[in-house]
């Protein structure tokens, strides 16, 4: 079976600084993985490279059998490969409802946008309560919900979440964890980047762990099956 996402020997970085030194990773259509490791080990860079915010200098990325290496970000979103970035402030001067409506921007996502909007509000009732609030006035947890909500509005076929629980209280973490579990159960494959291994492990069945180790050639070491 061909994997849904296949990252092969990817090298990428910022200017002269190379962060990924030939990294490979693949994920099947039915699975979800977690990536963990300390700061500065290229987890975020990997996601940025997959979503093409950072252009790889070598290697290839295939999504659903199609080579997407070096394609523009909108083309990747159109294909359904969605990245919810870290510590997201989104669009500070936009209201929640406006942001979520806008997030269904791609042609593919505009189909059934209303249904997905209802689903997002059902998943995060707090967003429904604050529809007209500006994003910059939201708390960290609410921003994270909005960020994930936006990603869901893009109609993801594979969803990459970058540290969804960064800086959140244990209670909010629990709440978000449950929501992420729901998303996984609804059949969307996930790649979740976390520093909090406890969080990832507590959501096994939904997310299988994958360790990240810094080596001469960075690559995920292994994927422990639950």
């Amino acid at each position: 079976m061909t994997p849904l996402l296949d990252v092969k020997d990817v090298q990428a970085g910022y200017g002269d600084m190379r962060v990924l030194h030939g990294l490979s990773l693949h994920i099947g259509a039915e699975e979800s993985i977690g990536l963990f490791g300390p700061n500065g080990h290229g987890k975020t860079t990997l996601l940025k490279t997959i979503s093409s915010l950072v252009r790889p200098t070598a290697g290839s990325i295939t999504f659903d059998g199609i080579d997407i290496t070096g394609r523009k970000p909108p083309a990747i979103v159109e294909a359904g490969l969605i990245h919810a970035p870290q510590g997201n402030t989104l669009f500070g001067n936009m209201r929640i409802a406006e942001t979520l409506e806008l997030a269904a921007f791609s042609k593919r996502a505009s189909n059934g946008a209303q249904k997905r909007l209802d689903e997002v509000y059902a998943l995060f009732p707090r967003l429904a309560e604050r529809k007209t609030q500006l994003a910059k006035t939201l708390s960290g947890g609410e921003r994270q919900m909005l960020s994930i909500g936006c990603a869901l509005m893009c109609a993801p076929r594979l969803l990459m979440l970058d540290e969804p629980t960064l800086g959140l209280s244990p209670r909010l973490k629990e709440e978000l964890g449950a929501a992420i579990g729901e998303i996984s159960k609804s059949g969307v494959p996930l790649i979740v980047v976390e520093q909090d291994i406890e969080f990832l492990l507590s959501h096994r069945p939904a997310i299988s762990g994958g360790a990240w180790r810094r080596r001469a050639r960075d690559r995920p070491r292994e994927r422990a099956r639950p």
Partner: protein
Amino acid sequence: MDTLLATLVSGLVLGSLYALMASGLSLVWTTLGVFNFAHGALMMVGAFIAWTVSEAVGAGPVAGVVAGTLGAGLIGIVIERLVIRPFYASRNMLLVTAMTTLAVTIILERGAQMIWGPRLKQLPPLVDGEIRLFGNAISAHEALLLVAAPVILIALWRFTVSSKIGRSLRAVGQNQDSAALIGVDVPKAFALAFAISAALAGLTGALLGSIRFITPAMGSEPLTKAMIVVIFGGLGSLGSTAGAAYLIGFIEAFLVLWVGLYWTPFALFLLMILVLLLRPNGIFGKR
């Protein structure tokens, strides 16, 4: 009383003019984070294109205004492509593009001088006749400007608030990466914002072309005023820019009455410096 009303009307005309100019400048600033110093030159080119189509070709002033608007918009797309897009990733984008757009201004002004020559030109008014406003006679063309400016500003505002494309422009202005991650084509959004802004400048030039003379340097004074307006308003929303435009228009009209034409620019700048000292984020900007 008559002088007061006449001054108010004159302020309203100036305010409409500045609002049209400054809204385009502000759109580029909020979307791209770039100050377009070629905005005045684009206005001038719009006026010359309008003159060519209307007078030299003989297609009439309405066709002239349309051609001036579209022509300036197209040139805007070319400018964005050639001298702004290559510097998106540059850390000094603001400074570099200040220089490149200044260079474009010089090219456009010299180019206009070569193409259209030094003779003063003027467009016929879009509508003939006079209209009485508060007991003052103003030309129907100026009255048209008074109506057109708010209509265009409201249309632009509705576009950025309600339409998908307009919202995507605001999104790009607030967070480029996040906009790209929901599928917005950021370079395309930049080009569109620049095109709309340039078209607005061209339209202003074409309308102004029958009030003032069309010369290669005609854009520099409105550009300075539009910059004052945008900074005065607080470098932000369309609403504050429009508000500041009318405020500056009225202030200028009254300054002309009180201190005379000669000292008015000086007094305006002095006022702007004072406002920025007291409210560093502009008169409508949030503290």
